[in-house]
């Protein structure tokens, strides 16, 4: 069944072509059909993609939780009558019924034309971004919106001037989050690019993936990654001449690092800007461009009271950006920094107000506040907390309780290692904490300046 044409995914098990993908769809559609909503937690990009297309063809809703924290998974499925989790591992079997699928069951009549069937599909794929409460905000996507976001990846890949059959993508970014979803899964589903099934994490994983790619005849590779991963993968990239392009989310990416990688020769480092709300919307070549170029179809409009908006034919309406922008007359723009209380750590974003809403629910404390120090790339976070009056717990026990509680709701990146135990949080009579008081606590926690 492995076709050498129309290759969509590859792994050490071989190549999966469009024919196998199409033949796997009907059995999976049948399995998923009774569910009202499908929470897709597949780690294998091929099975994940099958799940996405099967639910879209079934006109079912897919949810992709913001993290693997149990409460994040529960919250993403709230209100659904008979939700299922589509996953290989039993990690969340206590949350909802699990459906697994290993890809061995196929039918002779498949959905080779699934792309044209999905062109006008209205079924929802729900992705989440941080709101101002403890509950993440739901962003509804459709096939055309996610394909529209992946168009920027396709545009960059087309510009590499490489024979399409020899090109493959390897990703380090989680495909359940917007950048990885668009730049790997929808690059395959929407545009037919061939993508590595497994997630690359350690440098040895990248070495193994490139070896597999070489054996399968892929001579040019694109690494889809983030600045947080790139730091550890640099020496492997330098030693792998097949990698002809690094496609990184911005956090931002260090220009010096991009220059070191491009100095190897035969490799371009491209950076992509976007958000959960907009999808990927602009790109730049980090070594050459100060400003960002919007992807084809995107238009930014500044001058509104609240900030800059981005609109595109595949978005239902213009979206307010989470960054301040200096928009040039030619449509290119410069990023000036994040707006409001948005925290960015290792490319992941959250809001201080949302984190505080979760923190105050810790029963072992009577008050608490997140302390936030903005940085160009990785922000610093700490917590100031006041033990509950009626407890005589040690500081260690209280800190463990805080971390345990936060981990039920948010990605570990937002769980600070620094927790200050205080007698009180210096609030005003209206309950606010003045900026200068927050600065003092941040200084005490060693995260200011």
């Amino acid at each position, binding site marked *: 069944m492995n076709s050498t044409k129309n290759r969509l995914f590859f792994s050490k098990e071989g190549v999966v072509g469009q024919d196998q993908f199409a033949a796997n769809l009907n059995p999976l559609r049948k399995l998923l059909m009774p569910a009202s909503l499908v929470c897709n937690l597949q780690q294998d990009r091929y099975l994940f993609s099958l799940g996405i297309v099967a639910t879209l063809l079934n006109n079912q809703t897919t949810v992709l939780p913001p993290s693997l924290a149990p409460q994040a998974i529960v919250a993403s499925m709230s209100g659904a009558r008979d939700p299922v989790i589509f996953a290989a591992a039993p990690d969340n079997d206590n949350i909802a019924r699990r459906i697994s699928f290993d890809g061995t069951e196929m039918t002779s009549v498949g959905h080779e034309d699934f792309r044209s069937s999905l062109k006008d599909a209205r079924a929802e794929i729900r992705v989440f971004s941080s709101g101002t409460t403890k509950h993440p905000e739901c962003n509804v996507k459709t096939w055309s919106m996610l394909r529209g976001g992946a168009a920027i990846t396709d545009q960059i890949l087309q510009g590499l001037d490489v024979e399409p059959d020899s090109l493959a993508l390897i990703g380090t970014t989680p495909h359940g989050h917007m950048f990885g979803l668009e730049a790997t899964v929808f690059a395959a589903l929407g545009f037919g690019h061939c993508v590595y099934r497994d997630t690359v994490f350690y*440098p040895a994983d990248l070495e193994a993936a490139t070896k597999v790619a070489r054996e399968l005849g892929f001579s040019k590779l694109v690494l889809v990654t983030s600045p947080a991963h790139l730091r*550890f993968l640099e020496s492997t990239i330098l030693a792998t001449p097949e990698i002809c392009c690094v496609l990184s989310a911005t956090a931002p990416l260090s220009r010096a690092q991009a220059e070191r990688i491009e100095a190897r020769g035969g490799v371009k480092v491209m950076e992509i800007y976007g958000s959960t709300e907009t999808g990927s919307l602009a790109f730049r070549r980090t070594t050459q461009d100060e400003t960002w170029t919007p992807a084809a179809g995107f238009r930014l409009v500044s001058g509104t009271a609240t900030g800059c908006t981005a609109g595109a034919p595949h978005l239902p309406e213009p979206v307010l950006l989470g960054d301040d922008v200096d928009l040039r007359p030619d449509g290119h723009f410069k990023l000036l920094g994040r707006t409001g209380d948005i925290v960015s750590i290792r490319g992941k974003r959250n809001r201080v107000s949302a984190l505080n809403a979760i923190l105050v629910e810790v029963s072992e404390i009577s008050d608490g506040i997140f302390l936030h120090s903005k940085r160009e790339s990785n922000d610093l976070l700490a917590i100031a907390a006041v033990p509950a009056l009626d407890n005589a717990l040690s500081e260690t026990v209280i800190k463990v309780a805080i971390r345990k509680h936060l981990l039920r709701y948010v990605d570990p*990146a937002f769980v600070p290692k620094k927790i200050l135990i205080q007698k009180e949080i210096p609030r005003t009579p209206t309950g606010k904490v003045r900026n200068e008081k927050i600065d003092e606590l941040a200084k005490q926690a060693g995260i200011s300046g």
Partner: protein
Amino acid sequence: MKDQNSSENNEALQIEVAELIVDSLALEDIKASEIDHNASLFGDGLSLDSIDALEIAFSISEKYGFKLRSDDERNEEIFSCVRSLARHIAENRVT
């Protein structure tokens, strides 16, 4: 006698691993001697995240000359605490 030496070596390696974690992650407010060698490195223990694991793996490859891989089914166990990480290093170290 051999068992005693092996146990002492393992204890020394655990202390070394705790120091490697503190140094590679620049944990300013945690001393290596304060880390419980049986406590969870992730979750409610040291509350490390995936990039912290990458940082630790990078330091391990530099110091002990072997590389960790995602497809190792024992990864969860290896990274469960300082003691098990030290055991894995002892079994695989090249330098």
